[in-house]
């Protein structure tokens, strides 16, 4: 029998669902066992199950970058699924890195990517199973430095007590500096606190234990700031200036088991020119920076070769805005014919080009068109600055129906600021018009694929930090449900109602997500208490315990009203105000006023709105503008 090293016994692995989640050993995973050059052990964590975490691009980028450095060994760690979680607790098995199978507790760094609010209890699960004290203040040099990154760190306050450092912005820029400082401090025999204090002076680093908050009696923030003079009052996001000349994982790990995003992922650009007012990503990643198309072609071929995948997908916000999209897609299609690779298309604006491409790479009978008008009326679409008109949707569907498509998906949000009953009815009316278009443009004898099928989905709007809607009230659960019923009954009233299927999201999770998204430090106790009560995997509806969340908030004297449904004033100090994400508060205020005035704003290619991101001096900010409205 051959020897092998696994943290879990055969008996346990045979007992749990999908043991391949825990054994590492995948193609392209990096093993540096016995390598004497390694000075830093880094565990990169996505606090959700393996299949979700292994689909995340940011983690792949950083894993690749860190392992290129001779003195670092970066491994992966994910949340053990509930079955193994239980066993590890019963048998006191410490959480381990997949590559070495060594306990995380012995690592130098634990980097956690925080992609959605509902993973917060899983962060505590990871820390706890690793044997790391949950609160940063209780940790010693025996514990890894716990760092957080990702979109949720643009309001890190609800989880501030659990992290030593938050890295604000894109991970490629400052990691080397942090690691060098770490080595230096260790060598000099400095304390952990001294290291953190120095780290807090590196741009982009937020060390929450050195920042204090005071509250007014009504629970809003009175004062927020650093306790040491040398620390920055405002922490500016880190950003890669030249995205064509930076790290990119050309040999990503290839999982044995099927994961959510089971293909080569090519990131074509960062940022978005559109400025939809509800969208956080659209503000956080400004300005748009495109990767050179020749670089992308080279990457694509190399990654397909290094992984053996037969499918590649393009990743970015609003992919249709990538200026070299046509060239890139045509190249990938041509290459694919020879090498038997497929391209999985991102959602594209529906026009002649995208329909042509779609017909080449998908089975028209089986695929569907996707529109995301987000709101049912033109008035409300102006409010949210979603630059898509009814005419464009009807024209796009008409073209597509003539090309043989008969399935359409439409995405909307309920609960947007200023929304009225009329706007909600507009959702049903728009769906009806799309259906009617089908019957207008496709003669009976040509309806081979059956009649048109429309799927309308609504999610509930959650105001997010660093958007023009960050001050806006969110709806209550009851309002949400009422609006979903109204949408449904409005759909039922349509002539083509039989052709329209309507789905809506659950409201409970949205309410809690709202609390966490705009929450403050008071929530740390709530989250820890929920974790102690057994909450993990809150993002999985089957494990989300709504009653427990509401009950625990109340136990700590907190309400969903305070976080969600009240209108915040421009004067209020918001929990995330000490961060500088690149766009200014003044810009967000201007955009809020434009929203209320139902005025659209041009996109970054048409006209500069002076959001603040131009100070980086890169990307779309440097391009000449075309003028005009979208």
């Amino acid at each position: 029998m051959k020897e092998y090293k696994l943290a879990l016994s055969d008996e346990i692995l045979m007992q749990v669902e999908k043991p391949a989640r825990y054994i590492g050993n995948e193609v392209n995973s990096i093993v540096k066992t016995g390598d004497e050059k390694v000075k830093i052990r880094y565990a990169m964590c996505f606090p959700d199950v393996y299949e979700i975490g292994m689909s995340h691009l940011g983690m792949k980028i950083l894993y690749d970058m860190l392992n290129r450095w001779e003195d670092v060994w970066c491994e992966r760690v994910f949340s053990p699924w509930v079955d193994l979680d239980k066993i590890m607790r019963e048998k006191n098995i410490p959480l381990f890195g997949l590559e070495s199978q060594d306990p995380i507790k012995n690592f130098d760094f634990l980097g956690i990517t925080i992609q959605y609010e509902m993973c917060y209890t899983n962060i505590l699960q990871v820390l706890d199973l690793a044997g790391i004290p949950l609160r940063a203040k209780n940790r010693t040099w025996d514990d890894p430095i716990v760092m957080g990154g990702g979109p949720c760190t643009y309001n890190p306050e609800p989880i501030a007590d659990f992290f030593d450092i938050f890295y604000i912005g894109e991970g490629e820029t400052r990691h080397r500096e942090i690691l060098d400082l770490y080595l230096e401090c260790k060598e000099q025999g400095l304390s952990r606190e001294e290291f953190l204090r120095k780290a807090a002076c590196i741009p982009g680093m937020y060390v929450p234990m050195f920042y204090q908050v005071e509250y007014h009696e009504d629970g809003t923030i009175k004062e927020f700031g650093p306790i040491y003079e040398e620390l920055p009052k405002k922490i500016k996001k880190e950003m890669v200036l030249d995205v064509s000349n930076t790290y990119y994982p050309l040999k990503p790990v290839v999982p044995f088991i099927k994961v959510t995003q089971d293909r080569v992922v090519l990131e074509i650009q960062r940022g978005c020119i559109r400025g939809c007012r509800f969208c956080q990503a659209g503000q956080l990643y400004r300005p748009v920076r495109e990767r050179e198309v020749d670089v992308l072609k080279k990457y694509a071929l190399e990654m397909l070769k290094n992984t053996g995948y037969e499918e590649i997908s393009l990743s970015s916000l609003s992919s249709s805005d990538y200026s070299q999209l046509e060239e890139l897609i045509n190249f990938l299609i041509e290459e694919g014919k020879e090498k038997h690779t497929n391209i999985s298309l991102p959602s594209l604006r529906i026009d002649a080009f995208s329909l042509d491409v779609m017909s080449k790479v998908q089975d028209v009978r089986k695929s569907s068109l996707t529109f995301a008008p987000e709101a049912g009326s033109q008035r409300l679409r102006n409010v949210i600055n979603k630059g898509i008109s009814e005419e464009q949707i009807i024209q796009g569907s008409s073209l597509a129906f003539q090309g043989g498509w008969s399935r359409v998906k439409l995405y909307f949000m309920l609960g947007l600021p200023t929304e009225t009953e009329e706007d909600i009815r507009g959702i049903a009316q728009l769906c009806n018009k799309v259906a009617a278009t089908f019957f207008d443009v496709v003669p009976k004898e040509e309806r081979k694929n059956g009649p048109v099928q429309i799927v309308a989905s609504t999610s509930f709007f959650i105001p997010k930090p660093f958007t023009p809607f960050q001050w806006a009230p969110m709806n209550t659960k009851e309002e949400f449900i009422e609006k979903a019923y109204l949408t449904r009954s409005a759909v039922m009233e349509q002539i083509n109602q039989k052709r329209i299927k309507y789905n809506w999201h659950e409201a409970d999770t949205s309410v809690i997500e709202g609390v966490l998204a705009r929450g403050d430090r008071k929530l740390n106790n709530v989250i820890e208490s929920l974790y102690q009560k057994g909450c993990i995997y809150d993002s999985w509806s089957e494990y989300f315990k709504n009653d427990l969340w509401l009950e625990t908030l109340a136990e700590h004297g907190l309400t969903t009203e305070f976080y969600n449904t009240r209108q915040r004033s421009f004067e209020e100090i918001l929990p995330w105000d000490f961060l500088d994400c690149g766009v200014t508060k003044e810009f967000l205020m201007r955009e809020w006023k434009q929203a209320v005035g139902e005025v659209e704003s041009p996109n970054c290619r048409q006209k500069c709105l002076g959001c603040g991101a131009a100070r980086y001096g890169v990307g779309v900010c440097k391009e000449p503008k075309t003028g005009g409205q979208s």
Partner: protein
Amino acid sequence: MRIRIKFSKHGAVKFIGHLDIMRFFQKAIRRAQIDVAYSGGFSPHQIMSFAAPLGVGLCSNGEYLDIEVNSHQGREDMMSRLNEAMVEGIKIENIVALSDNAGNAMASVAAASYLVEWKLKAEKPQGLKESCHSFFAQKEIFVTKETKKSTMSVDLKPGIYAFEEKEEGIYLLVDASSSGNIKPALLLEAFFAYLNLPFNPNSIQITREDTFTRDKKGSLIPLDQAGENF
């Protein structure tokens, strides 16, 4: 040209299930830049046939799959390219060329041999030689087989071709055809019941030693002997 690949599977990868091993090989063949043939149709796939699926937790020295290639640079080249594309624990052991009329890997499987070892040598029961012998000498060996719909009693005896003690443990050669496949764990359960001993599947390691087909005369031969060197 049709190619038969023999590979072994040991160590941590024993926890990778059959379907995932198939997906692993599809990608490995592409990484190795083997000029593999694809089927036609709207979503072409590699022409590939695996022999008998191996249960999760089992190791193997004799797994097989067939592929079809449009061109190649010789057997050595293909072996080394494929081995480059493997992971720790999976190794290409042999490659042979199949004649056009040879049955595919899956359809040709007739039997498989297994070695059962105790993870802790001390746990190996005493007097195995005799007990194996007397167990195998029975006229019939009935076990209860659970299917999705029902449970039924089946006589395994006709499908057992060898059941004997070896130095490392127990060697068995059993039917592995699609119609009469015998899972070694099921047979061992019956054996332990026969000995009135508790059966703990976690205390043993089962390794498939080889997978067999029948030649023209009806004798069992390893699947790679159905092909030729090239």
